[in-house]
């Protein structure tokens, strides 16, 4: 078949940079990886048990398109509890196949040809292709380390044109670990309102925020600011908070008008999210808070450990306060991120994803995941250290 017979839009999309790196890693059998974007914990047993029980009970049918009523009600209670935002379970919440589906649907529900979608980068790999597939023009905002990779009012203002429709807010951020605090969001809100933008707030890492020693979790959603709920779709899911990546379960909360359009696409493309996963998720929200707290504490310990090790080897790295990634800078070595990562892999057998996998402005950075045991982190970082020392002494 000839390529010119394929969809030009699809052909035009670049394959994920992670995929390219994966292919190199896959040929090395004994590499230690710090490249994974998912929790190392198993799904807590009581949650798995509910999934198993639902299968034993023969709950193997479709649920309603928008998801199980019990689950939507639990999500409504959870949103109220954690963000202080009220959503009606019946028309402002629906269940998706992972947060990724919600991202795709939000763009498709809102975008008309030529609309612009603002995407701060470095960020998760799917916003840009989803925007393109929806017929929008992605406009990239390059976040800066000197701003701790937060989005500033000025950067936002400068990127807005009369075609701008959606702003993606990917915080806590993969790959930088940056968060947006309340005052950062408050600075953006008037601009969003002035230009009549919609916000896609991807809060999949909301439970993994580490700002205050004493606070349990301090994540703030833009939807909780005055006037923002009616123009924001909050995307979240069970993958990161409850270590449930393989269950493929997420959800979207927002104004009924948009949610109903998203459900329409969902009902034709997906029908409904996996039933077993939905039953397990009800248990997660009812009785999983202690698991989340335990995992958050454990990630925080590893975060401190990795930051300490990077400091020891003199690798500059801003202090991330969310997700489970650190994003050290490797510009001093005069190599591209790709070269650095590839050479590190070949010489020390450590797999770390180059920052460029998350946007061109990730050049000069690496994404280190700390969703690993301390022992594993120590082993890998000792190898990184000797690699770094070797590069420095050969200069």
């Amino acid at each position, binding site marked *: 078949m000839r390529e010119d017979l394929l969809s030009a839009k699809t052909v035009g999309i670049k394959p994920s940079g*992670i995929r390219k790196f994966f292919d190199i890693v*896959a040929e090395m059998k004994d590499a230690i990886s710090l490249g994974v974007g*998912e929790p190392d914990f198993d799904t807590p047993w009581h949650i798995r048990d509910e999934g198993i029980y639902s299968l034993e009970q023969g709950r193997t049918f479709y649920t309603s398109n928008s998801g199980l009523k019990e689950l939507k009600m639990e999500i409504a209670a959870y949103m109220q509890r954690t963000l202080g935002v009220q959503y009606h379970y019946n028309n402002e919440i629906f269940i998706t196949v992972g947060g990724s589906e919600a991202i795709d649907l939000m763009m498709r529900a809102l975008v008309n040809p030529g609309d612009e979608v603002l995407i701060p980068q470095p960020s998760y*790999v*799917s916003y840009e292709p989803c925007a393109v597939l929806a017929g929008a023009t992605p406009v990239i905002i390059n976040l800066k380390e000197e701003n701790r990779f937060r989005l500033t009012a000025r950067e936002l203002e400068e990127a807005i044109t009369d075609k701008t429709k959606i702003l993606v807010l990917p915080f806590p951020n993969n790959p930088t670990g940056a968060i947006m605090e309340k005052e950062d969001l408050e600075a953006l809100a008037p601009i969003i309102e002035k230009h009549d933008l919609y916000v896609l707030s991807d809060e999949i890492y909301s439970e993994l925020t580490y700002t205050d020693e004493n606070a349990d979790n301090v994540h703030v959603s833009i939807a909780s600011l005055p006037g923002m709920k009616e123009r924001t779709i909050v995307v979240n899911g069970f993958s990161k908070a409850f270590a449930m990546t393989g269950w493929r379960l997420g959800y979207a909360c927002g104004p009924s008008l948009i949610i109903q359009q998203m459900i329409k696409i969902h009902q034709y493309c997906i029908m409904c999210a996996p039933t077993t996963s939905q039953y397990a998720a009800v248990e997660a929200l009812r009785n999983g808070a202690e698991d989340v707290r335990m995992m958050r504490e454990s990630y925080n*310990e590893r975060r*401190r*450990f990795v930051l*300490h090790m990077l400091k020891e080897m003199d690798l500059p790295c801003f202090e991330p306060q969310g997700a489970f990634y650190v994003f050290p800078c490797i510009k001093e070595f005069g190599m591209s991120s790709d070269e650095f990562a590839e050479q590190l892999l070949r010489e020390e057998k450590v797999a770390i994803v180059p920052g460029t996998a998350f946007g061109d402005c990730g050049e000069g950075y690496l994404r280190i995941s700390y969703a690993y045991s301390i022992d594993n982190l120590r082993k890998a970082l000792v190898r990184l250290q000797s690699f770094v020392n070797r590069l420095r002494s050969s200069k």
Partner: protein
Amino acid sequence: MNTLKERILTIIEKNSRMDISELAIVLGTEEIEIVNALQEMQDEGIICGYHTMINWDKTGIEKVTALIEVRVTPQRGQGFDSIAERIYKYPEVNTVYLMSGGYDLMVILEGKTLREVAGFVTNKLSTLETVIGTTTHFILKKYKDHGTIMAKKSEDQREIVTP
């Protein structure tokens, strides 16, 4: 109990080899804080030792573990404490618990052979005057002990690189 102590206990319960400087790093505090907290908890008898989990089955060294249910007559003024003390002073006794339910004390014993365990039960334990009766169970296989699964090694099942 303050949260630092609780965090320390949670970590070293799983991995007592984590040293003081690493504990300070992961808990975001100074080493001296860790040293003091550990010392205090040792003095208070909260931390009673730092042991190693060994799966003896894999060493080829023969060992038998027995779980013995013991029914006793409690003693005036002392309840079960003095009889428990009589039993736990034997070095071959690993564990002594006071139980609710059908018997009083649970004694876990480790010996080299069946005969050795049987000898302890018949010659030492049963002959104590307050002991009314014993039931001995031998442990055939340990699947999980102290929260650690011994039956099989866990492996990272994740893909090596994911977004």
